[in-house]
């Protein structure tokens, strides 16, 4: 009985692994090791990565492009094990979204000794071949400045939902948001609370803030994952005046901009980022050398109308802004910017 279950499980596992081998003359094997796989952003990210691998493999006759992703499910030890195993597999390029960069320094050297190109994701690493970064502080500042401008100089109270304590992306985004808000005197941060990237926790915090601060004007977050449950709570309570300032460029959140609840978002878009990974790996494979610290292009998203209002209230003209239709198009279709056509 147990033997059957075991072998069934193993057969399943084997079937899943089968696609990796097969030789072609020129091969590009990419592995993406991420810290998680369940948050909406992660899902879009990994999906974009998978789609891009398939598209590149199909588009170029002469190169066999393959790839896979692994999720450490939040555990540092697991991520280290996955990285060690992957180095032993000798792929061409590794993207590693390290839970903690210090812990990965020894492994970078090991990977490079095997001829693997190491690309540090989000948190830059000096030793890595390349670092793929988001510009979190600048993005956060844009979000905060947008809030300043769209509050039109009126007294304005905001609660800021943070990432897990100690998480570098979350800390950088927080720093940026507070910096942006500090550019005006009328916006007051009445509360800051980490929601640990968790939607249920975010909803509880939002609900508690609504009762604690009945005159709250806005909720700002370091991820769009906090926006869904907070908007649900506000809408169900019939509170349509409250504004939301998001971060991530999740498509459903950008869609809610036209109705006026979501005021601003940062267009990362997981889908785009996944596509950009594969494009970057392909460029390196073809002998190009991107910037050592590669900055992912992440514009601010506003409605056209709000952008006008913001400009009238002192929002800097040089900040690059995408309007909703363009943002939606780009967010959904990673191949527009980073597909095989972009490097042909």
């Amino acid at each position, binding site marked *: 009985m147990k033997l059957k279950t075991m072998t069934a499980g193993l057969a399943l596992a084997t079937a899943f692994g089968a696609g990796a081998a097969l030789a072609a003359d020129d091969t590009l094997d990419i592995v993406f090791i991420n810290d998680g796989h369940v948050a909406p952003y992660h*899902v879009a990210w990994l999906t974009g990565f998978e789609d891009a691998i398939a598209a590149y493999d199909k588009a170029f006759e002469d190169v066999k492009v393959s790839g896979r992703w692994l999720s450490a499910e939040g555990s540092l030890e697991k991520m280290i094990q996955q990285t060690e195993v992957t180095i032993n597999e000798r792929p061409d390029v590794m993207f590693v979204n390290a839970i903690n960069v210090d812990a990965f320094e020894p492994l970078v050297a090991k990977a490079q000794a095997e001829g693997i190109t190491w690309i540090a994701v989000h948190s830059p690493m000096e030793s890595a071949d390349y670092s793929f970064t988001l510009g979190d502080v600048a993005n956060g500042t844009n979000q905060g400045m947008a809030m300043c401008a769209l509050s039109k100089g009126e007294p304005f109270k905001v609660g800021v939902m943070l990432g897990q304590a100690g998480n570098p992306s979350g800390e950088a985004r927080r720093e940026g948001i507070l910096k942006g808000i500090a550019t005006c005197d009328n916006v007051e941060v009445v509360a800051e609370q980490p929601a640990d990237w968790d939607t249920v926790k975010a909803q509880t915090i939002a609900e508690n803030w609504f009762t604690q601060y009945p005159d709250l004007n806005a909720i700002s977050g370091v991820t769009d994952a906090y926006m869904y*449950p907070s908007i*649900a709570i506000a809408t169900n309570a019939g509170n349509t005046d409250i504004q939301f300032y998001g971060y991530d460029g999740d498509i459903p959140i950008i869609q809610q901009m036209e109705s006026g609840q979501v005021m601003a978002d940062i267009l990362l878009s997981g889908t785009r980022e996944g596509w950009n990974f594969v494009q970057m790996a392909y460029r390196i494979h073809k002998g190009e050398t991107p910037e050592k610290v590669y900055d992912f292009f992440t514009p601010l998203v506003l409605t056209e109308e709000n952008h006008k209002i913001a400009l009238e209230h002192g929002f800097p003209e040089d900040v690059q802004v995408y309007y909703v239709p363009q943002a939606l198009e780009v967010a959904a279709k990673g191949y527009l910017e980073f597909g095989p056509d972009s490097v042909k």
Partner: protein
Amino acid sequence: MPDVGRLLREKNIIFVTLALALVFYLISPRFLSLDNMSAISRQIVPIGLIALGQFFVVVSGNIDLSLGMGSVLWAIVLGVFFGLTGGVALGIVAVIAFSLMAGFFNGVMVSKLKLPAFIVTLSMLFVAQGLSGLIIPRGQQIFLMGGFFKFVGAEKFMGFYWSFLFLVALYLAAYIVYNHTRWGAYVIAIGNSEENARLAGIKVDRVKIGIFMFSALCSGFAGIILSSRMGFVQPGLDGNGLLLDGIAAIIIGGVLILGGRGTIGGAFWGLLFIGVINNALNLLNVEDVWHQVFKGTVILAALGANWVLWQSRQIEAQ
């Protein structure tokens, strides 16, 4: 005079909760506002459902670790059916049917095959976690719109959320079953000694299967309410957090984990206590890193208090 002392000891959780509420009120007057009370009442519903299911399992001397992750799976089952059919009826039926089947499976494994409940339900935790991601296409979110979800998630009756009233009704029904029916007496008897229960002619296996079916059904209800409140479902919801809060609620409520002891009222007060703590830690902007320390200490203290109470009862009995 001795009656007051006894009351204080036996119902300590009520006084502790009230005292705590008073302290929080003094720090932040808004704590006792109607809005905040109603927010707490809604936040405790999923935890409360899981705690109630766990209550019967624990009193009978077992544990069910699958309740938290189960409720995430049931929320996603509801979402998947909603996505396929555009309606809720079929999804609700499916959640109820599947959760009862899962509970039946757990119950049979524990009673007929004599497997340890800890391991059976731990495996089911992993299975639920796996299925929750596998049945939803590429792990994406499903948005839940429509009257039913709004009704369950946000509508009120005479100032109370319907979901909270449902919870209270379920606790009342459980109170009656636990205190005034033979089935309730069987649960306690099994928790005290399975051998004696069997010798007394109680159909132990059947009662145990019933207990696990009820707890799984509670997690099904929790899934429905959780998803309605969120307005969407996704596999990454924190099911284990719900499980732990549910267990903490019944420990704090004085349920003795070795089985055979505990009151529904105690469990309900334990639940309120957890709700008040979770809410107050937010409202008072307590630094996140202290939350776990606080919870761990509270559970240890509650265990210690239960022990003292139990000792004093032993002495009284002699």
